[in-house]
C-alpha cells in the first residue's frame, strides 16, 4: 500500500517537538502551562498514531509506511523508517502509555515540572524512533538516546538511592549497546557498506561470526529485557524511579529488548539463534521460576512488581526461542499485555505511595476499608498479573506454554509454574496490603482515588479486559509478519 504522507516521521518527531516546547516554558511558575502542553502533545501523539493501525495492511509482509532519505553519505546511513506487524503494536502501546504517564504525574510532580514532562515526551518520540528504524545506525542513535531522558528522570525525581540506581541503569545498558555497535560495524563491513537492517537479514554469515554477533546482540538486548542474570539493575531502577518513570520503564523500555531479539538476533543470525536456543530457553526459565521465587520474598511493593516484570519478560524470551508461531505470537501478546499490566500495577503502587510515602508492604493493611474503588482496580490488575483467564495476562502466557509444550514437556511444566508463582507473589502481596484489619493510623486517614486516578486506572482496566477477551485485533496484525519471520529464521544462512 502506498502512503505518501510521512506519518511515521510525524509520530516520531511530534512528541519531541512538544517536549522541547515544554522545556521552553522553563520555570515552575509556568508549571500549569507545561502540564497542559504536555497533555496536548501526548494526546496528539496518540491520535496521529491511530492511522497507523487503521491503514495497516495485515496481509502484507513487507514494511509499510516506509520513508527513506539519505542522512549522511559518508557511511551510507539513511533515515529509513517503516513498520511491520511486530513494531506497529509496540509503537501504539508507547503512544498510548505516554498520556497516561503525563496524567499520572499531574499533581504529584511539583518541582521542575517542565523538565519532567518534557523528558517523557522526548523519550516517547525517541522510543517510537527505535521501533520504526530500518537503518541500524538510526536505530542505534535512537536506542542510546533513549537512555538520556530515563537517566535524568530516575536521577532527579527518584527516591533516596536514586544516584546509584541511575548510574547503574545507564552503565549496564551502555555496556550491552556498545558491543551491539561493534556488531553493526562488523556487519557494515561484511555487507559491503550498508547499515540497512533488511540487507543484514539477507546477508550470509559464517558460523563463528554468527555466534559472536549473537552474543553481542544478546548482551545489548538481555540487559534491556532484562534476562537473568543481568537483571539486577531493574529492581534498583524501579524502586528509585518516580511512578511515571517506573511505568515507562516497565511498559515501554523493557520492550525494546524484546523487540531487538525479533528484529536483529533471530533474522540476522538464525543459525546461531538455533544453536544457542537451549541456552536462551534455560535462561528464560530461570527468570520465570527463580525470579518468581525471589519476588515472593520482597517486602517492598515496587521491588516485587519489578521482579515480577523480570519473570514475565522471561516468558517473552522463552517464546521467541521456540521458533514456533504460537511461541512468538504469544510472546508478542505478552509484551503488549505486560505493558498494560505492569504499568497499571506501578500506577496502583504510585497511588498508595503518593498518600503514605511508603512502599513497604508492612506499612499497609486494610486499605480496602478506606479505598474500596481503588481496591477493586488493584484486584483486577493483580489478577491479570497472576494470569487469570479473561485478562490479557492469560492470553500471552497460555500461547507461550502451548508453544513450549510442542518442544518439551518439562520446559512447559517449568514455564507453567509461573501461574502458581505469579498468583503466590501477587495475591499474597495484595492480601497483606488491601485486606485485613486497619493496623496503622496512617491507613485510617486514606482517601479513595481521585477522578484523575480513576480515569487512569479505568482506561488501563478496559485495555486489560479487552485484550483478555478479544485479542484478535492484535494477533491479526502481526500474524503475517511473524509467519514470514519464522520462515526466514528456519532457513540456514550458512
Amino acid at each position, binding site marked *: 500500500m502506498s502512503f505518501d504522507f510521512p506519518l511515521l516521521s510525524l509520530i516520531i518527531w511530534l512528541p519531541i517537538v512538544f517536549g522541547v516546547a515544554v522545556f521552553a516554558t*522553563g520555570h515552575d511558575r509556568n508549571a500549569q502551562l507545561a502540564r497542559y502542553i504536555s497533555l496536548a502533545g501526548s494526546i496528539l501523539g496518540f491520535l496521529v498514531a491511530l492511522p497507523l493501525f487503521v491503514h495497516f495492511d495485515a496481509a502484507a509482509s513487507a514494511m509499510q509506511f516506509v520513508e527513506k532519505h539519505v*542522512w*549522511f*553519505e*559518508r*557511511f551510507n546511513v539513511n533515515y529509513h523508517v517503516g513498520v511491520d506487524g511486530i513494531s506497529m503494536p509496540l509503537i501504539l502501546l508507547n503512544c498510548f502509555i505516554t498520556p497516561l504517564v503525563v496524567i499520572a504525574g499531574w499533581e504529584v510532580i511539583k518541582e521542575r515540572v517542565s*523538565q519532567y514532562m518534557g523528558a517523557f515526551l522526548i523519550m516517547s518520540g525517541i522510543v517510537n524512533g527505535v521501533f520504526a528504524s530500518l537503518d541500524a*545506525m538510526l536505530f*542505534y*542513535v535512537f536506542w*542510546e*538516546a533513549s*537512555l*538520556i531522558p530515563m*537517566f*535524568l528522570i530516575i*536521577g*532527579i525525581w527518584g527516591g533516596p538511592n*536514586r*544516584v546509584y540506581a*541511575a*548510574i547503574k541503569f*545507564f*552503565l549496564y545498558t*551502555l*555496556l550491552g549497546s*556498545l*558491543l551491539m*555497535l*561493534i556488531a553493526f*560495524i*562488523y556487519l*557494515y*563491513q561484511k555487507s559491503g557498506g550498508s547499515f540497512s537492517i533488511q540487507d543484514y537479514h539477507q546477508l550470509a554469515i559464517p558460523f563463528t561470526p554468527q555466534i559472536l554477533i549473537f552474543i553481542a546482540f544478546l548482551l545489548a538486548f538481555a540487559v534491556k529485557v532484562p534476562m537473568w542474570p543481568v537483571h539486577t539493575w531493574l529492581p534498583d531502577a524501579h524502586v528509585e524511579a518516580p511512578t511515571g518513570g517506573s511505568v515507562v520503564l516497565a511498559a515501554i523500555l523493557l520492550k525494546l529488548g524484546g523487540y531487538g531479539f525479533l528484529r536483529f538476533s533471530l533474522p540476522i543470525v538464525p543459525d546461531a539463534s538455533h544453536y544457542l536456543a537451549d541456552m536462551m530457553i534455560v535462561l528464560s526459565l530461570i527468570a520465570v521460576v527463580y525470579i518468581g521465587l525471589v519476588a515472593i520474598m520482597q517486602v517492598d511493593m515496587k521491588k516485587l512488581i519489578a521482579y515480577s516484570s523480570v519473570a514475565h519478560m522471561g516468558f517473552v524470551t522463552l517464546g521467541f526461542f521456540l521458533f514456533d508461531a504460537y511461541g512468538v505470537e504469544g510472546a508478542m501478546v505478552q509484551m503488549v499485555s505486560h505493558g498494560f499490566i505492569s504499568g497499571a500495577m506501578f500506577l496502583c503502587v504510585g497511588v498508595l505511595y503518593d498518600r503514605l510515602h511508603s512502599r513497604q508492604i508492612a506499612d499497609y493493611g486494610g486499605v480496602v476499608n478506606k479505598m474500596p474503588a481503588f481496591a477493586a482496580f488493584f484486584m483486577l490488575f493483580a489478577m491479570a498479573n497472576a494470569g487469570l483467564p479473561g485478562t490479557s495476562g492469560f492470553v500471552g502466557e497460555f500461547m507461550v506454554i502451548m508453544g513450549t509444550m510442542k518442544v518439551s514437556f518439562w520446559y512447559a511444566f517449568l514455564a507453567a509454574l509461573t501461574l502458581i508463582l505469579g498468583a503466590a507473589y501477587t495475591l499474597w502481596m495484595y492480601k497483606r496490603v488491601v485486606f485485613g484489619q486497619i493496623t496503622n493510623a496512617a491507613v485510617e486517614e486514606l482517601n479513595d482515588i481521585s477522578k484523575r486516578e480513576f480515569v487512569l486506572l479505568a482506561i488501563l482496566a478496559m485495555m486489560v479486559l479487552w485484550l483478555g477477551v478479544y485479542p484478535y485485533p492484535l494477533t491479526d496484525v502481526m500474524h503475517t509478519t511473524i509467519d514470514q519471520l519464522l520462515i526466514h529464521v528456519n532457513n540456514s544462512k550458512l
Partner: protein
Amino acid sequence: MSFIPPDFAPASSEIFMLIMVCVVMLADLTIGKSKRYVAYLLTQITLLGCAVLTFKSFSDEAVLTFSGMFVDDSLADILKLMTYGTVSAVLIYSYTYISERDMLRGEFFSLVLFATLGMMVMISASHFLTLYIGLEILSLSLYALVALRRDSTEATEAAMKFFVLGALASGFLLYGMSMVYGATGSLQITEVAKAIQDGVNAKQVLVVGLVFIVAGISFKLSAAPFHMWAPDVYQGAPTAVTLFIGSAPKFAAFGFVMRLLVEGLGNMSSDWQGILVILAVMSMAIGNIAAIAQTNIKRMLAYSTISHMGFLLLGFISADANGYSSSLFYVIAYVLMTLGTFAMIMLLCRSGFEAENISDFKGLSKRNPWYAFITLLLMFSLAGIPPMIGFYAKLAVLQAVVNAGYVWLAVAAVLFSLIGAFYYLRIIKFMYFDEPETNEPISPNNDVKILLSANGFAILILGIFPQALMGISLYAIQNSM
C-alpha cells in the same frame, strides 16, 4: 649565481602573523593599563586577517616553497582555518577570566599568537627542520604561558615539569630525525618518502629512528606512557591557559602526525602500526581508569584527554585515507567539546574563586538550567552517546579500526569508553541530582553567552547532521595524499 627570492605567497598568513605579533607587543608598551582591550582586539583582528589570507590561498593543489621546506595544501589550509577559529574562541572565553586575574597583558596575547604561529608552521611543514622549528615555537610559548602567573607555585611547578619533559621529547624527536636522515640522506618529507620506497640499506637505523620519532610524537600528544606531564600541567596552569593548551594545539599535533608518519614514513606503516596499537590501548586504559579517581576537574579532563588521544591514534592504525579522515573528524569533535567544557569551568570561576573541583558543578541545573543543559550535552558527547557529535567521532574511528581487521581493538576501545562514561556521568550527577552549595549567579558577557550556546548546540546539530564535517575531513585528507 644570482639569488632567486622564494615565493612568499604560500606563507603569507604566517608572515602576516609574525608582523602582527610584533605590532601587538609594541602596541602593548604604548597603551595604558585601562586600554588593555586594544591588545585583545588587535589579536582578534590578526586572527581574522590570517583567516582571510589563508582562505585566499586555498587551493586543491599543493604548493611548495622555500626550497621545498614549506607546503600549502588543502590539509594545511583547513587545519589552519580551524586553528584560527579555535584560538579566537579561546580568547573570547578567557577574556573575563584573565582580566579578573591581572593576566590581561600584552604578554598573554603575544604568547598566544606566537604559539599559533608555531602551530601554523608545523601544519605547513614539508621538511623535518621546519616541523621542528614550528614545534619549538609552539612549545616555548606554551611553557611561558603556563608560568605566566609567576607568583603561583603550582603554575611554576607545572611549567618546570612541562619544560623539562617537553625538552626531553624534543630531544627524542631530533634524535629520531637524525637517524632517518642518516638512513635516507634527506630531511625533505617527500624525498624521505621516496627514498624509503626505493629501499634503504640501513633498515635498522630507520626503524630505530622511527621509534624515537613516535616516542616524541606521543609526548606531544600526551599519549600513554608519555602522558605524565599532562595532568600536572592541566591542573597547574591558569584555566584560560589550560583551555588553550587543550584545544588548538591538537590540530597542530594532528598535522604533525600526518606530515611525519603518513607523508614521510608512510611506507613504513607496517612498522608503526604495531607501536600505535600499544600506545592507543595504553592511553585509553590509563586515561579512563585514572580519571575515575580524580576530584579536580582539570586533572580529570587531562586524563580524559589522554584517553581521547588514544582513540585518535586508533584512526591512524588502519593507515588509509578512511582512517586518517576519521581521526581528523575526531580531532575536530574533540576540540569543540574541550572548548565548551573549559569555558564552562571558567564560567563557574569568579574573581577570588577558582572552580577547580568537580563538586563545584553541584546543583548547576538549579543555579542556571541553560548552562547545565549545555554541559549535559558536552558530557554526553565526551562519553560518546548519540546524537551528540562525540558519538560519530567514535563511530568513524571504530569503523576504520574494524575495517583494518582489528575487531578486538574495537571491542577494547568500547569497553574503555564504557569506563569513561562513568566519570562524565558523575559530572551530570553533580549538576542535576545534587543541591547547589552557593547561589552566586552566573552572568557571563554577551559574547561568551552567545558563543557558548552556539558551541553547545554545535555539539548537537553537528551530531544530527554530521555529513558536512565528515566531508570536509575526507576532502582535506584525500587532497593531501
